[in-house]
């Protein structure tokens, strides 16, 4: 019962394992962790039914963790006509007027029945939720993971959430999240901007907000 019990919540809900240079894998019955797929272990030993493996690899340097730095964000809702309404920052979340609930919050979510510490976003119909970070120190890539929270909401709702990722106003790409998309991880190339501090903007829209609770996490890395 003590296996893994020393893992902090933030590590359990990690975006991925890129920031870790050393990975310990405890497995049984030939199972492998997705994080070690394709890697060769530096050390491996058997302990009864369990196999312990150690992997060594170059760790990504995270220059900006968007979830950890959630309170540096500027959050707004943009109506189809371009009218902007600003969301205000409470001690542990952002609150927007429509819907009048915790609109953006760093939270441990269940996405694809796995834990993900993410910026949880309740969505508004006919409006774009914008989460913008100014002067983000960029590295070679921007990793973004996204998906829909809560198994019952994924059953009840039908809408597809679209996350648009922009740096310096230029679109890097989009991630679509639906009931069956799970946790989608994409890595956008920012090597041309490595070492610079730029604004990073996330625009979230949904075609049907009913029973949609969207979460995303992002890291700027080198």
């Amino acid at each position, binding site marked *: *019962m*003590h296996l*893994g*019990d*020393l*893992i*902090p*919540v933030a590590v*359990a*809900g990690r975006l991925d394992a890129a920031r870790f240079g050393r990975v310990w894998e405890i497995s*049984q*019955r030939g*199972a492998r962790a997705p994080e070690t797929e394709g890697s060769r272990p530096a050390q491996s030993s058997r302990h009864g*039914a369990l196999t312990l493996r150690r992997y060594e690899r170059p760790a990504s340097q995270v220059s900006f963790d968007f979830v950890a730095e959630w309170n540096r964000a500027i959050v707004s809702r943009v109506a189809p006509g371009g009218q902007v309404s600003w969301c205000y920052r409470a001690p542990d979340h952002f609150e927007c007027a429509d819907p009048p609930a915790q609109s953006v919050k760093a*939270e*441990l*979510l*269940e996405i694809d*029945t*796995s*834990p993900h510490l993410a910026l949880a976003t309740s969505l508004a119909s006919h409006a774009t939720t914008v989460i913008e970070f100014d002067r983000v120190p960029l590295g070679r890539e921007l990793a973004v993971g996204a998906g829909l*929270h*809560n*198994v019952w909401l994924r*059953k009840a709702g039908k809408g597809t959430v679209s996350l648009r990722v922009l740096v310096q106003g230029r679109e890097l790409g989009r991630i679509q999240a639906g*009931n069956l998309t799970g946790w989608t991880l994409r890595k956008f190339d920012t090597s041309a901007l490595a070492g610079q501090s730029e604004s990073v903007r996330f625009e979230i829209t949904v075609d049907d907000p009913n029973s949609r609770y969207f979460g995303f996490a992002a890291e700027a890395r080198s």
Partner: protein
Amino acid sequence: MADVGQAKRRGKGPRWIVPLALALASSGWLLAVEGRQGLARDEAQYFRAGERYWGWFEALGEAVAARKPGRAFSRAVVDSFWGDNHEHPPLMKTLYGLSWRLFHRCDCVGPKQGLHPIAVHGKHRTLPLFSRESTAFRFPAILLAGLGVALVYGFARRFIGPWAAAGAAVLSVAQPHYFFHAQISCFDVPIAVMALLVAWAYWKSLRSPRWGILCGVFYGFALATKHNAWLIPCFLVVHYLWMRRGDFLRLRPPRVPLAFVSMASLGPILLFALWPWLWHAPVARTREWLQRHTQHEHYNFEYLGQNWNLPPPPTQTGRWLLRATFPFVSTAFTVPVTTLALAAAGAVVLARRRRKDAPADEPDLINPEPPEPGARASWLRPGADVDLAPGMFLAVQILGPLATLAFPSTPIFGGVKHFLTAMPFLAMVAGVGLAWVTRQATSLVRPLRLRRALPAALATLLCLPAVAETQRSHPDGVGHYNLLAGGFAGGASLGMNRQFWGYSVLPLLPWIKAHRPPSNRVYWHDVLHDAVMMYVRDGRLPVGIGDLGVGEPLVAQSDLGIVILEKHFAVYEYLHWEAYQTTRPAQVYAHEGVPFVVAYQRGAPPPPQEPLPP
């Protein structure tokens, strides 16, 4: 062949001794181990409903004593008792309530008096057979499971010898999933037994009008047990049309047999008579009952690593096909391998069965009811002039329930329990396989004594793995997977459903009791209030133990919480991590290394650090 020879001596000595012994042994086995089986979520609701239904009989008694019996039949009084859990018919719940009233050891006054769903006015006078109230509730289900075993023996004896039939009977209950459901106060094994009873009556009605009438009576009981009964006639019709296919070739459609007439008439009448909730609005409430189950929502269920809670659209061909494999793969992974192998052999025997054995040949099956020479079929004896086609009969009874669950639009949340009605028939086919194995083995042995001992020895030997596997799976039979899947751990690795109904908390109750937080704020997750209350009434939890109720926001208010480990319940584990700011469980219940329940405790001290060896 010794087995056949013994079978031909049928009728010498009382025929009921062996089935009675099998029934008693099975019920005894179930009673001996049910105390280790936690209370299932739905079961606890049936306890409550059963006790309420008993309350109506008390009200009836009071009304009769007051010389106003009509009062108990008023809509208000009927609904106040029988309205509880009216999505399921009442026969078994009524028996559970009656058994509780008769056989519990009354601890009903004092601090537990208020825990009952009906008013308790004083100490009950009972025959206190059971120390736990839950056992008294479960007793009818356990007896009925024993009856099912006896029925398998009796039915199988029409085809095979006594040892192979006894083997079939044992294999019918020695299935971990079936065994799990056989000891609890639910409806899945009771309806399997009822389906077997109806099928047997139908089978006998093919040559006997008396059984045609009985078939309708039994069908009424089946209807009053569970809605699976709706499907029973469909499977029987398929067999009947196959058996009488010659009529179509002669362009003379077969007559509607008495059994079907009886089922169509007596069945609904009995259902109505047994279900007071229908009495005041039979049409509207029957419609409500039908709609409840034909439009049942899809709960969450794990199958091959995916969580299924909606029917896959046909446009998603891969998911659609994968979902369609569910009942067949689940059967292959949950029924003991020896039973599957014997059933495969039996299926071959049945498929190759010759209708007219040459006199010199040993028959593959004992068939005491060949077509009667010169007999003419009538609606009273519709199988008099034809072969009864036992192979098709058994195939339809097995494949029918599985095929129903193969439709992607059919909810699968109950897993194997939804097609348990197939299992007694599968065991009968395994019995046919056992008879074949016995015959092959006997032909290789010359000493007469050994030949005579072989049927018993082989039946024992080939039933032992299934019995051992079933005993080993207890109390988590619903999470058991067989040798093909790799046991409990193999099933977990394959992403097969581990459990449902929150029954598995039982082994953790002593720990929860010992670590009850001073705030008394306990989050019980999928162990519903009715189950917690019954644990209290059984003396397994203290009176006054906290129960915060159901719902995600309540986790944050708790100081001790449990999570029943099902794939779709992952969110509850993360809610505990966030609320308690730790991922470390305080206690885990696991079976053969597969965790079933984890408990979290707010502010629990970290475990002692054990220095690693250099």
